[in-house]
C-alpha cells in the first residue's frame, strides 16, 4: 500500500537526482573494480616476468647433454655415468672409490 506522501516523494526532483547519483557511483565503482583487477593482474604478470629475467633467476630446463638445470636454486644433474644415486642437486660421487694401485701410471693428476 502506498500513501500519497510516498508517491510524491518518489516523484520528487531530489529523488531523481539521488538515483542519478547512485547510478553514477555504481558505474564509478565498476570502473574502479575493473582497473584494480587489471592492475593486480598486470603486476602479477610483470612479477612473473621479472622473476625469470632478473640476474640470478631462471627457469628450469634441459641442457643439450641431457642435464637438468635449475639456476634458480642452482641444482643440476649432469648426464654422466656415475652410479652414486645422488639427487640432481648434489655433486655425484663415483660409482666406486679409487683403489690402491701398484701399476705404472701413464698419467699424473696434479702435476701441472
Amino acid at each position: 500500500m502506498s500513501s500519497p506522501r510516498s508517491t510524491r516523494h518518489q516523484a520528487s526532483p531530489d529523488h531523481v537526482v539521488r538515483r542519478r547519483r547512485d547510478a553514477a557511483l555504481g558505474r564509478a565503482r565498476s570502473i574502479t573494480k575493473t582497473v584494480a583487477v587489471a592492475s593486480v593482474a598486470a603486476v602479477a604478470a610483470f612479477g612473473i616476468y621479472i622473476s625469470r629475467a632478473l640476474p640470478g633467476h631462471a627457469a628450469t630446463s634441459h641442457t643439450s647433454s641431457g642435464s637438468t638445470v635449475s639456476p634458480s636454486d642452482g641444482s643440476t644433474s649432469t648426464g654422466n655415468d656415475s652410479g652414486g644415486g645422488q639427487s640432481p642437486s648434489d655433486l655425484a660421487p663415483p660409482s666406486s672409490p679409487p683403489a690402491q694401485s701398484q701399476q705404472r701410471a701413464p698419467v699424473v693428476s696434479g702435476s701441472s
Partner: protein
Amino acid sequence: MVDTALVGVGRNLAVYRTTRWSTSVELVVTDPRAVAPATAVLHRELDRVEQVASRFRPDSEIVRLQEATTRAPSWAQPVSDDLYEAMAIAVRAAALTDGAVDPTVGSALCELGYDRDFSALADGVAGRLPAARPVPGWQTITVDAERRAIGLLPGTVLDLGATAKAWAADRASAAIAGELDCGVLVSLGGDLAVHNAPDGGFSVGIADVCGDQTTTVQVSVASGGLATSGIGRRHWMLGRHPVHHLVHPETGRPVDSYWRTVSVAAGSCVDANTASTASMVKGVGAVTWLEERSLPARLVRTDGLCLTAAHWPKDAEGGPAPQSVDR
C-alpha cells in the same frame, strides 16, 4: 700445439700426449689402433670448448658475450647450446659449493695479472696486490633456459677455469668412448675423465707439488672423474707478491690456503674439479664437506700432513714411480 708424442704403455694401452692451454693433455686408450681417431676426436672437442669458453681468445663466444653485455646491457643474450651448457655447469658448480667456485672471478684474476696465457706469466708481472673486495658473484648471472640466453652485469669478466677444462675432459672422454667403443682416459692438466675402463681401472699418479719437489702416489680409477687442485704449480709473482690462480670470491685475492693439494674422485670430471677447487677455498672445513657428499678425497696440508675422506685408499707404499711427463 707443441710437444706432441705417442707413447706406448703396456701391451694394451696407448698414450698420446701434447700440450694445450699451457697444460698437459694426455689421452689413454685401451685399443692402440684407436689412438689416431681418438686424437682427432679429442682435438675436435678441445677446439670447440676453446672456441666457446676461452677468456684468452678475443673471438671466443664468451668474450663476445661480455663485450655485447657491456656495449648494450640487456636482460640476456642468446648464446650457442655449448656456451649455454658451459654457463649452466659453472652456475651449478657455484650453487653446489655455496659460491666457493664462482665463475665471476675473471676481473679479480686479471687484476692479479692473469689476463694472458699462463705461460706468459713465468717472469712475473708488474703491479700491486689489489684491495680486497668481493667479486660480482654468480647470482648476478642470468641463465634463461627458455631463450637459451645468458645475462651478465656490465663489466663482468667470466673465468670458467674451474669447470670448462673438466667439462672438456668429460666431453672428449664420452665422445671417444661412444664413437670408438674403447676404454678411454682423458687428462687435461691432471683433471681426468674415464669411460669404459679396463678391469682394475686406469692407474693414475696423484702428485703433490711442494716447491721443486713432486711426490706421487698411485691409485686406480674405474669410472667418472678425478681432479687435483693445488697451489704448487699455477703461481707467479705480482710485483713482489707471490700469487696463485685460486681466488677467494669474498676477497678477490688468492686463497690463503690451508691445503697444498686436494684430489677428489667423483662421478664426472666436472664434479671432481668442482669439489677439489671448492675444498681449496673452504680450507679446514673441506674434509667434513667432502665426507657429507661421499666424495673420496686426498688432502695434503701446507705442512705436508695427508688426510683422506670418504674411502680414499691409503697411500700405497713402494709402488713404482709414475712415468715422467715430458714438457
